[in-house]
């Protein structure tokens, strides 16, 4: 199909973008890797597209004290290659490397992916695991939303009408080791399940762990039972396996053509174990 007719605007500042989004049937275009297919299938029918592509303020990664600030329109490819991201938030780079294919990574953006709030998207779980926060701009000015509060439901971010995501603030994490473990049917496909794992060790035992799951519910889910079981545990396969057994607790995965809910729960346990073992520097058993 081809999209229905739609108006297009291409503001050069965030303020202009917010103004354009005053139209209640407007939709932000932030790379278009999800929105354009939806327009083509006529699953979305906005009357106005507000393309953020020309707003240079929204691109790039900078250091701000103990945080990284990543512009919402920074492409996946730029995130992947950014030295600050690789130094202070390698988990984000690890997950971004698994997003779709090279072409998509050069068009798609971090902010676009997060604001789309697809439970099968890889990056929502990562920002939850990293305890990032979202800076949004709207008619009433700017505010920050914690990643844990940003994902409300399927494809529903905590953005008020007229608000636009402008940047992601990621705490710099030194002394943490991380891994994103993704399981998909096709190399370029969505995650059936993904696990974002960040672990801080202290003298061989795990002092702190943050685990978030992709596609195990309508939003990214923290595996809190696993996190508490890991706290104080040693990083042995046995201990990790025992902790990972709780990965699916409290989750509500959906069942679809690619995987049943039961299989997703099973994968969550297996992949959580693998993600943690990989994060602590040991190859998984399989």
């Amino acid at each position, binding site marked *: 199909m081809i999209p229905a007719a739609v108006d297009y605007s291409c503001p050069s500042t965030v303020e202009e973008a917010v103004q354009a989004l005053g139209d209640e049937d407007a939709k932000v275009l932030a790379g278009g890797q999800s929105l354009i297919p939806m327009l*083509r299938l006529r699953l979305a029918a906005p009357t106005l597209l507000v393309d953020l592509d020309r707003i240079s303020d929204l691109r790039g990664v900078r250091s701000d004290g103990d945080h990284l600030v990543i512009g919402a329109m920074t492409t996946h490819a730029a995130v992947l290659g950014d030295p600050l991201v690789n130094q202070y938030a390698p988990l984000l780079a690890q997950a971004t490397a698994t997003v779709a294919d090279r072409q998509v990574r050069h068009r798609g953006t971090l902010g676009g992916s997060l604001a789309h709030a697809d439970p099968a998207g890889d990056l929502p779980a990562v920002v939850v695991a990293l305890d990032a926060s979202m800076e949004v701009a709207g008619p009433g000015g700017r505010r920050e939303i914690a990643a844990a509060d940003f994902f409300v439901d399927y494809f529903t971010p905590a953005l008020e009408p007229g608000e636009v995501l402008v940047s992601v603030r990621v705490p710099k994490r030194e002394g943490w080791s991380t891994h994103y473990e993704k*399981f998909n049917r*096709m190399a370029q496909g969505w995650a*059936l399940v993904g696990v974002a794992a960040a672990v801080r060790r202290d003298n061989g035992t795990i002092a702190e762990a943050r685990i978030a799951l992709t596609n195990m519910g309508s939003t990214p889910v923290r595996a809190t039972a696993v996190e508490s079981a890991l706290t104080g545990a040693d990083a042995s396969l046995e201990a990790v396996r025992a902790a990972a057994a709780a990965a699916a607790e409290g989750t509500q995965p959906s069942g679809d*053509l690619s995987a049943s809910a039961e*299989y997703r729960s099973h994968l969550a346990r297996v992949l959580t174990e693998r993600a943690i073992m990989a994060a602590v520097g040991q190859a998984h058993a399989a």
Partner: protein
Amino acid sequence: MTITEVGSPRRRKEDARLITGRTMWTENVVLPGMLHLAILRSPVAHAKITRVDTSAALNEPGVVTAFSGRDVADVQGSLPCAWPVTEDMVHPDHPPLAVDEVRHVGEPVAVVVARSRAAALDALAAIDVDYESLPVVLDLEAALTEDADLVHLDKGTNRSYTWIFDSAEAGSGGAVGAAFDGAEVVIKRRYRQQRLIPAFMEPRSVVVDPTGDQYTIWSATQIPHILRFLVSVVTGTPEHKVRVVAPDVGGGFGGKLQVTPEELIAFVAAKRLGKPVKYTESRSDSLMAAHHGRDMIQDVELAARRDGTVLGLRVKLLANMGAYLGLVTPGVPILGAFMYNAIYKFPAYRFECTGVFTNTVFTDAYRGAGRPEATYAIERIMDELAVEVGLDPIEVRRRNWINADEFPFTTVAGLTYDSGDYSAATDKALELLGYDDLRREQAARRESGDPVQLGIGVSTYTEMCGLAPSRVLGSLRYGAGGWETASIRMLPTGKVEVITGTSPHGQGHETAWSQIVADQLGVAFDDVEVLHGDTRTSHKGLDTYGSRSLAVGGIALYNACQKVIDKAKPIAAHVLECDPADLEFAGGQFRVRGNPDGGKSLADCALAVFAAHDLPDGIEPNLDADAVYDPDNFSYPHGTHLCAVEIDTQTGRVSIRRYVAVDDVGRVINPLIVEGQVHGGVAQGVAQALFEEAVYDDDGNLLSGTFVDYTLPSAADLTDIVTDRTETPAPGHPLGTKGVGEAGTIASTPAVVNAIVDALRPYGVRDIPMPCTPERVWRALNGGVA
């Protein structure tokens, strides 16, 4: 004749334009005043159409006309089925636009013609259709029960036909009942061929121009000649008033071996309006409404002795026709009937196939058409036999296959295999795979309880391709012949135009045909131009499918070359002032036998003919030649494919570790093209084993309607393929070639699934339905129903 080109791995001359897209695809055709057509498709699987109102669409911007099936019921005709496999086959009407009833999701219901594609698509929303639901028929077995709901109410049955082959009745073997009576081993299995979507890269597209002296139809089709003939028949348009052009066409795999509803709808619209009309489908429409492939239930029963000797085979198929019969829908499973006995020489065989209507889009040819299904079933059950009698799967095959010194061999299915050396291909494949080492590694992994288990899959195959001897097609009630044609036009400067009746859509005919002609006529490769796919230049031909183009068309081409040489000879003799009988032709030169100097080239003769100033008396000034070749047998490539898989038993993920394909396709014209065909074929067969499935829900909605859900693998999902060949020239073929277009697809699916099941036998697994997704493998591992 000096052979320099044949056998050379030339890069394809057509690739630069095909790969860059700088060429004429049907969608690139732009004509003055051309209008665009959009199709409203049924959102429901089975319903009466109680009302269609297209009037509001007429008020939409840019709209020229809108109409429904009812508006054109008298003129649109019924789509043809060229293969009524039995005399009493139930063959329902197949209107291009539904008139009173829709029978599958995606069936065309109404159209809008507008000044732009966008305007036409937008206006579809203004068409109002009322549907009155009818019961949906999806399950093949339920469809055949006494009180089943019906796809075609007026037919009183969902059974289209039952077609039987019995070796005792045919005189090609013994009675299968006797073979099973008292057999030491009887193995019975049910296999499912899931429904597949051909998923060619270039969506189907058609432009119909009614403004000239002829109706010109551009179409992304595999079959321009057959399309011309059938459009003429179906619409009552005199054949000479129809010209069909298949410009460059991007893929087909059987999916463009069809006379489509969309082609006829565009024809009807263009005729009504007197203006050129274009229709290009979207990917979603293509996945939903272009014909699908496979979709069969196979009940297979094998009788054998304890020593592994097979005694007989019974096959009972239910084949899903979909809602209608496409061009060769009923014949696809019948093509498989002759292949279930595969490379084996057992003495008794019975095959029974019932075609069943359901409320799904019609099935039809898909790469291999019948033969992959047959090969899958026999190669899967041969592995079961190996396990049952305690033999290595290679050994059980050795004990049953036709030996190299037994050719020609008449099979229990009545075909005469011309040549082959199954042992040579298998030995080579075993060595390339490192079979014994992998078996040792498999044992070690089993021993240690490794979470990653190893499996080795075997698939030995032959196939009947090179469609086909016309008499055989006639005896199977197919509506056309199987000959092929080639013409050579000698230009005055010695350059050569070749017109082929085949219709390449990625196969590389321009290159391979040029190589053959270069060798035969002694002209440079670059001095040959191959023309195809336009009935104005190539009025005759039977197009490209069934691995037939080189196997059949190659002989026509060879014969046409010989005719050109024969015509040139008296002219060369005249110029050289010698007796034609004293001349020999080699390297493009006529020379007096024994005298290496002072010859005349074919180009000299072409110029002499052009001038015609000094020709022998009574000689027609013409070197051009046509040849039509009708084969007297099929082509029988064969080979052995071996696949090693690793299975992550924790997740069920299957990874192909090594894949070896040793194929015997006879003499090879261009090894690069052959390798490409094998690679692509294997990829498509692996895709059936591991990835692809068209899925309908209980209401007949296609769930796998985009590439997110119809999981077509990419290069990243596949593996390196080790290819090699044995070469048994096809006897009776002057070039010694056999078909190669489908071999990879036919061989690879059972190789992969056999490998998976081989890995998991210690877990009690003996089958996993295709595609073997991680979840299905995981469930099988855990004793669940996959």
